[in-house]
């Protein structure tokens, strides 16, 4: 293992933890929302990305988070994903792909009247788990689903 790379990764994680602390403590939510969360999006592992984006990697699987994605995606460049939740007080929703080089694909910060129901289309390099993380009442809940990506494009 390349020592420099390890060092860099640790440094990035530490910096992102500090960033979260600052945004939680000093800045108003509005100001914190305005900046693109670079640390979270460039994190190379799922837990690192969740920590940087949502403040903690302590998420539990919940039946109240629904992740809708195809079982088999014929074209990995366009995978439709819908995340809905029946939880009350959902603040934000994150979508991650476990094997992508940068797992965090999108985060959605919801306004007070916005329903926990977002859809988008994502890219996937290969067969992987799609993970939805929902933040409600300061806690994290998740759902995951494996999506098979067929490369041939013949719909096997």
């Amino acid at each position: 293992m390349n020592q420099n790379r390890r060092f860099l990764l640790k440094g990035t994680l530490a910096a992102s933890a500090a960033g979260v602390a600052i945004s939680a403590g000093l800045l108003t939510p509005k100001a914190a929302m305005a900046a693109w969360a670079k640390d979270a999006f460039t994190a190379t592992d799922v837990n690192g990305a969740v920590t940087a984006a949502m403040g903690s990697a302590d998420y539990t699987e919940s039946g109240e988070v629904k992740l809708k994605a195809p079982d088999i995606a014929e074209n990995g460049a366009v995978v439709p994903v819908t995340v809905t939740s029946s939880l009350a007080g959902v603040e934000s929703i994150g979508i991650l792909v476990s094997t992508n080089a940068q797992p965090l694909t999108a985060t959605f910060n919801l306004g007070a009247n916005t329903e926990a129901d977002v859809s988008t289309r994502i890219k996937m390099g290969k067969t992987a788990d799609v993970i939805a993380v929902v933040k409600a009442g300061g806690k994290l809940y998740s759902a995951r689903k494996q999506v098979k990506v067929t490369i041939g494009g013949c719909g096997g």
Partner: protein
Amino acid sequence: MANSIKVRAKVKDGVASIKCLISHPMETGVRKDKKTGEKIPAHFIQEVNCESGGKSVLNAQWNGSISRNPFLSFAFKGAKAGDTIKISWVDNKGESDSTEATLK
């Protein structure tokens, strides 16, 4: 980049459902040009904001792993027909666009 956003906004029982399509290449920065073998520089939307009546409805932050010509749909309560919403995006090169739509 005028008119890069297509919006459909409908209200039913006080809930507005918004669907939008944005024209954008969404390059990850990892893909290579097949002819030259050189990397295509990253070019993707980082933030999409939606406001209604001066209040933020949705702030989406995206990575390059969102599909080309991104699609986004969401819903919010407390809306009525005739309200206007404003949708805007900013990409990693600082380019941006915005549009306004009226709820039907």
